[in-house]
C-alpha cells in the first residue's frame, strides 16, 4: 500500500484498495462539510460548558448558565399564578353577590370552582354534582339547608355533622323505632308516600297522618315540607335523598341513617370556597 495510485481519468489519488478492479478515489472532504464539522465541535464544546451535560454520580454538571427544565416549569407556574393574581385579589375582596354580578369574576369563579369541585367534592357528589343515594344532587332545586349563595358557602365551609367544626350544621332525626310501634311506623310511611304517590294500603294513610302530626311535624312541618332551619328535608316533593319506596321510608323512620360532610374551611382557602360556592350555585338549582 506504500506506493501511490492515481486514477487516470480524474487525476485523483485513490485509497490504494482494490476490489474486482474498482478503486475508491481519495478526494479530500469538501471544505463546507469540514467547516460545518468543526463548527459542530465548537458548538458542542460551548454547549457542554453552558448547559447541563456531563453525568456525574448524583446529577449532571449544572452548566454555567444554570439552566434546568424544572426551573422553567416553576417560572411558568409563577407566571400563570401572577396572571391570575389580579382577578383572585378581586374575588378575595368581593362578596359572593358581587362576584356573581360581575361577568368576568363569575366566569373565573365558575371555572375555578369546577376545577376544585372535581378534586375535592366529586368523590361523594359525583363529577357532575349529580349525587347518589345518601349524597345530595347539587343540580336540583331541593336544598336541605338552603340554596342561596351565603347558605351554600356556610355549608361548604363548616360541613354537616362534622364534629371537628363547632359551627357545623347538625340535624339529628331520632330513631323512632324506640318510640313507635312497628305498625305505627308503617302507617306513617304510608302517609308520607301518599303525599307524592300511591301507598300500598290506602287505609293506613289516615292514622299515619295523625302519627305524623304528633311526632314528625315539629321538624318536618305540618305540611311535611321540611324546615331548612333544622335541615329537615321536604317529604312532599319528588326528590328522595336516602330512600326509595315505602319500606325504605319505614326503615329510615325506625333507625335513620345520617350522612356527614366535612368542613372544608380548614383545608381550602376562603377564595377557593367562594369559587366552589359560585360553581355549585350556577349548576341550575341556585336560589
Amino acid at each position: 500500500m506504500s506506493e501511490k495510485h492515481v486514477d487516470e481519468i480524474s487525476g485523483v489519488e485513490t485509497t490504494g484498495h482494490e476490489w474486482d478492479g474498482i478503486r475508491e478515489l481519495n478526494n479530500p472532504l469538501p471544505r463546507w462539510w469540514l467547516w460545518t464539522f468543526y463548527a459542530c465541535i465548537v458548538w458542542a464544546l460551548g454547549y457542554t460548558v453552558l448547559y447541563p451535560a456531563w453525568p456525574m454520580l448524583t446529577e449532571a454538571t449544572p452548566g454555567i448558565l444554570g439552566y434546568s427544565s424544572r426551573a422553567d416549569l416553576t417560572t411558568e407556574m409563577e407566571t400563570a399564578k401572577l396572571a391570575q393574581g389580579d382577578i383572585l385579589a378581586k374575588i378575595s375582596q368581593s362578596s359572593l353577590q358581587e362576584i356573581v354580578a360581575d361577568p368576568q369574576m363569575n366566569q373565573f369563579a365558575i371555572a375555578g370552582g369546577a376545577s376544585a369541585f372535581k378534586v375535592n367534592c366529586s368523590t361523594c357528589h359525583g363529577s357532575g354534582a349529580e349525587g347518589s343515594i345518601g349524597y345530595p344532587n347539587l343540580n336540583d332545586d331541593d336544598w336541605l339547608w338552603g340554596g342561596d349563595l351565603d347558605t351554600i358557602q356556610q355549608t361548604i365551609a363548616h360541613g354537616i355533622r362534622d364534629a371537628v367544626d363547632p359551627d357545623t350544621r347538625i340535624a339529628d332525626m331520632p330513631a323512632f323505632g324506640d318510640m313507635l310501634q312497628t305498625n305505627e311506623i308503617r302507617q306513617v310511611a304510608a302517609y308520607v308516600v301518599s303525599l307524592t304517590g300511591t301507598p300500598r294500603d290506602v287505609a293506613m294513610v289516615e292514622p299515619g297522618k295523625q302519627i305524623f302530626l304528633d311526632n314528625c311535624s315539629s321538624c318536618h312541618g305540618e305540611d311535611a315540607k321540611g324546615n331548612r332551619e333544622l335541615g329537615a328535608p321536604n317529604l312532599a316533593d319528588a326528590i328522595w335523598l336516602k330512600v326509595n319506596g315505602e319500606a325504605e321510608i319505614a326503615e329510615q323512620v325506625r333507625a335513620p341513617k345520617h350522612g356527614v360532610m366535612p368542613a372544608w374551611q380548614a383545608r381550602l382557602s376562603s377564595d377557593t370556597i367562594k369559587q366552589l360556592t359560585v360553581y355549585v350555585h350556577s349548576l341550575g338549582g341556585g336560589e
Partner: protein
Amino acid sequence: MNLYTANHLQPAGGARISGNGAGGGTGSAPPSEPLYEKRQKIFPKSVKGRFRRFKWLFMVVALAIYYLTPWIRWDRGPHAPDQAVLIDLSARRFYFFFIEIWPQEFFFVAGLLLMAGLGLFLLTSAVGRAWCGYACPQTVWVDLFLAVERFIDGDRNAQIKLNASPWTFAKISKRVSKHAIWLLIAVLTGGAWIFYFADAPGLAFDFVTGQAALVAYSTVAILTATTYILGGLMREQVCIYMCPWPRIQGAMLDEHSLVVTYNDWRGEPRSRHAKKAAAAGQPVGDCVDCDACVAVCPMGIDIRDGQQMACITCALCIDACDNVMDKLGKPRGLIAYATLDEYDSNMAVATNGGQTVIEPARVRNADGSFVDRIRQFRWQVIFRTRTLIYFGIWALIGLGLVYALLARDRLQLNVVHDRNPQFVLESDGSIRNGYTVRLLNMVPEPRTIMLSLDGLPQATMRVVGITDVPGQIVAIPAEPDKAMALRVFVTLPPDRDRKLSQVPEFRFVAEDRSSHESDTYNATFNLPGGKK
C-alpha cells in the same frame, strides 16, 4: 428534455432535419464535463414591440394591485374593520370586499386555490407558459429590477463594458445606487405584504414610528431579503434551478399548446451574408443570424435551439425578431407563438416529410409569399377538448363557490347536551336538561335572535345570564360578529303518563325575525330510565 427539444437536433450545422429518430441531442455528455455549471452573467438588451408593451402594462397593473389593494377602504359599519382586503389572523376573520369568511368557512379559500391550480392548467394547455412569461411575481419583479439596472447602467453593451471595467469611482457609485434602489423596491415589496394582515394606515404609522409588532419587522426583513436576492441577484436561476413549475409544465403542454417558437422551416439555413449567399445560388432562410433574439432574452438562451425548459415564453425575442424582419421587409413571425402541431406540419413541408434538409424553396412561392400548405396559427385550437374540460371543471368549482357563498348561513346554532348529569329531577317532579348552545352571529351588526324550542310543546327554558323567567321563546341579544356560548336549562313538567323509555327529540330554533334568517339544531331530551 421536453416534447419540443425531442424534435430537434443540436443546432450544429446550418440546416436541421426534423424527426425523432435522428439522434439523442445532449443526452450523452462526456464524463469529464463538470456537474456544476458556473453562472454566465446575462445582460438582456431592451426591446420595443407589442409584447414588451403588453408586459409593461401587465407589470403596472400587477404591481398596482399588489401595492394598493390594502389601502382600499370598504365600509362595513362600526363593528368591523373598514379595509377591503384584510386577513385578520388575531380575530380569525378574512375580509374580501363584501365577503367575510370565518375560519370554518375556509373551504372558500381552498376552493379558490383549486380554481387557481386548475386555472393554471387551463392557461398552460391553451397558451403555454403564459404564467411564467407575464404573471409570475418572479418575472414581474425581475423585469422591474432590470428596468432599474438599465436606468442606472445603460443598455446591454454599456452593462457589459461596465462589468468588465475596473472599480472606478463611477462604477462604484453606479453599483451602489443600483443596489440601493433594488433594496428600496425590496423593502417596499416586503412592506406592502404586511398591510394585508392589519389596518394599513395604522400599521404604517406604527411601523415607521417603531411601535409595530416584532413579527411585522421580521416579515418585512425576510421578504426584503427574498425580493432582493431572488429578483435582483439570482433572477433566471430561480426559474431554472429552484422552481418546480417549468418541469411540471413539460407535462402540461401538448401539441396544440401555444409556445414561443423559432420557425426554422422558414429561418434555415441561416446566414449573416444572405445576399452574398443568395447571389451564389445557395439556399437562404429568413434568419440573418443577427442574435437579436439572444441579446434580449432575460433567461440567456437561444430560442433557435428549440423549445427548452429555461424558456419562460416572455415573447421578447418575438418583438426583437419582428423588428428585424420589419427592417428587412420580410413578413413577421420568424419567431412567433405557434403550436407544435402547426410547426411539425410546416416542417414537413420544408423538409419534404423529413427526407431532406430544410429547403427554403419548398415553403415559398416565387414571389416570396408562403405556399398554401404552410399553416398559420388559428385561434380555434385554443378551444379543444382538453381546454374545455379544464374550463368546465374550473367553472363548475367557481359556480359551486358562488352558490355556497349565496346560500351560506350568517346565523348558526350548535347545541351540546350536558354529559353529566344527563337529566335533573326537580322537587316538583319535572325533569330538567342542561345544554350549551353556541350561537354564531356572523354579521358585523348586533342582532336580536329569538331562541325557541320546536317539538317539546310543554317545555320551558331558561338562559343563564339572559333571563331567569322560564319561557318558550327567549330573545338573545347577539353581539356583532361573535360566537356566544349560552347555558340553557330546558324543563319538562311532570307527567305521570309519560313512558320512561321515551327520549323526546326536538329542535332548537334560532331566528332573526327582521331578516328571517334561521338555523335549527336537533337535540334530545333525556329522561330517567330513558335510553342513554
